[in-house]
């Protein structure tokens, strides 16, 4: 039933995005990339997929400029899609950008706190998280001004409201601010896809709920694992867990009480997927804790974060099996981001002569 009028407004977008998805690098492409000896070779191999965007690169570009250019393509495509989107899809895509906005805002807060030149800050912002009032931030010179006159005007204002005051911005660690915002954002996004009349009960809601729940769980687990050994208290940590997801509420509660990796493992035991990851990453049995400590040299096994990325990609890939869904836009952006990460990783391995680990990229096609 939901498919009846979907194409009236969104059929074009869906077609475009599916086209983009087919343009993603495949396992075969990646194989070719890993055979490259120099960045120039790599550039050549990327030619068909990225063509114009890499043309302006100087010979043997640095990996960061390569990443920049590949991101440019994603942004150009995203903007095109966004420009053609209407109604609920447009709103959906705006939601998609809020995540990047949070990063940008965190960056701006950090910069303002340290009285940096805000123009320089703007250059560093993620283009997807660009919002109209962002240049106005240049006016703000202190944190109170930033909060009262600028942040309030951003789409992120509701995420600040109620959980963060301008004093908090000054005192709390920026990471806590960022994760608080992100939690509110995820909750809001989840709420949006499940209550919006255009999406509730459609495949969009179904797929997006799965994606967002996974994202929420991943963040909760990561925050818990990464907070060990820091001065983040358990009660503060608990405030950063999104209030939905497959772990919520029992798992979240157990996470909030976890004191070590073992505790986290127990907390996620209820969800078989996560339990498998923990076992695969070799965590929880020994006190070795967060990954191997050999610092970049060892590590044949995948880390927990790798497995999470893998899972995210699989969910994103399967999103394309559903029709009449906005979720494919989200999935496409995520797949594309992973692709950029993969390219950067491979380029980094080539540039730094660390070929033995070049296979650590994640490819799902």
């Amino acid at each position, binding site marked *: 039933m939901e498919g009846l009028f979907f194409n009236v407004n969104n059929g074009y977008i869906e077609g475009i995005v599916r086209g983009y998805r087919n343009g993603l690098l495949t396992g075969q492409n990646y194989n070719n990339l890993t055979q490259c000896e120099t960045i120039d070779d790599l550039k050549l191999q990327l030619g068909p997929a990225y063509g114009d965007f890499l043309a302006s690169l100087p010979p043997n570009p640095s990996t960061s400029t390569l990443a920049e250019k590949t991101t440019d393509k994603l942004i150009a495509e995203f903007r095109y899609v966004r420009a053609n989107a209407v109604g609920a899809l447009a709103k959906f895509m705006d939601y998609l950008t809020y995540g990047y906005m949070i990063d940008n805002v965190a960056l701006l807060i950090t*910069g303002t706190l340290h009285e940096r030149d805000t123009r320089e800050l703007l250059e*560093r912002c993620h283009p997807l998280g660009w919002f109209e009032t962002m240049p106005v931030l240049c006016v703000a010179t202190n944190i109170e001004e930033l909060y009262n006159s600028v942040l309030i005007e951003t789409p992120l204002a509701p995420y600040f409201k109620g959980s963060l005051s301008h004093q908090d911005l000054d005192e709390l660690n920026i990471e*806590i601010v*960022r994760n608080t915002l992100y939690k509110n954002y995820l909750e809001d996004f989840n709420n949006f896809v499940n209550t919006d009349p255009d999406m509730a009960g459609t495949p969009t809601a179904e797929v997006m709920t799965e994606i967002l729940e996974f994202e929420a769980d991943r963040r909760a687990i990561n925050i818990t694992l990464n907070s060990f050994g820091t001065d983040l208290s358990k009660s503060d940590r608990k405030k950063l867990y999104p209030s939905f997801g497959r772990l919520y509420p029992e798992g979240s509660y157990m996470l909030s009480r976890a004191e070590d990796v073992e505790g986290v493992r127990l907390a996620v035991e209820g969800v078989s997927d996560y339990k498998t990851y923990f076992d695969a990453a070799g965590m929880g049995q020994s006190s070795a804790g*967060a990954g191997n400590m050999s610092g970049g040299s060892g590590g044949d096994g995948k880390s927990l974060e790798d497995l999470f990325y893998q899972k995210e990609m699989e969910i994103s890939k399967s999103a394309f099996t559903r029709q009449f869904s906005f979720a494919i836009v989200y999935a496409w952006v995520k797949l594309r981001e992973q692709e950029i*990460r993969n390219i950067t990783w491979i380029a980094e*391995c080539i540039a*730094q002569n660390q070929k033995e680990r070049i296979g650590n990229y994640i490819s799902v096609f």
Partner: protein
Amino acid sequence: MSGATNREAVFPTRQSLGLMKSKLKGAQTGHDLLKRKNVSEVIYHYPVVQILSSHATTEITRRIDEAKRKMGRVMQIAAFSLAEVTYAVGGDIGYQVQESAKSARFRVRTKQENVSGVFLPAFESYTTDGNNDFGLTGLGKGGQQVQRCRETYARAVETLVELASLQTAFVILDEVIKVVNRRVNAIEHVIIPRTENTIKYINSELDELDREEFFRLKKVQNKKQRDTAAQDAEMRLKLAAAEKAEAASGATSSDKENEAGTGDILGESEDADVIF
């Protein structure tokens, strides 16, 4: 005097001669010591430098190259772990890291070790507790990689600190050796000849003084003799006059024996004078 231009301005006295002699002795001992204290000796005393020490110059440079290359490798591994962070976080953390740096967790202690009179610096790294500017970096994602990267870099910095000690030791050594060589040369070519010259000068002056003194003494003696002789003659004249006067007055009253007696005495004395 030939060495007049190259000697120290001293009064040629016996005391300064003694001083100069002890100075020369000191300079010679110092020279011998300094000559022995060459690069290798300093090196062998210093454990860190020892690693690199060898008489073959190529060997030394090779080892330093090696140490520096090791740094290259360590730094590469560290840079790679940063690439892992970029991968895991999915973005650039550089700016945030720069802005959240507040207080150094990783510091060095600087001390100097006395190695046969040369102070060689040594850096010692230590971490201060309770300083954790980046504990929460990558909280949402990538935190594990960030922590791993921190450890890798901390190890890399330790290597760097070691290398810095080593390198500074060489810089100072370079300086020390230059100074030592300068000193050896100075002692050999300036101080020793100059002191020797001074000693020669003092000796010759003292000899000269000796000769003068001897001559003067002789003069004094001569004069004294002349004076004595003159006095003697005068005395004799006086005596003779007195005798004559006595004889003139006493001839009327005294007998011949008296005359003979005095005549004997005079005769004896005159004889002695002739002998003398």
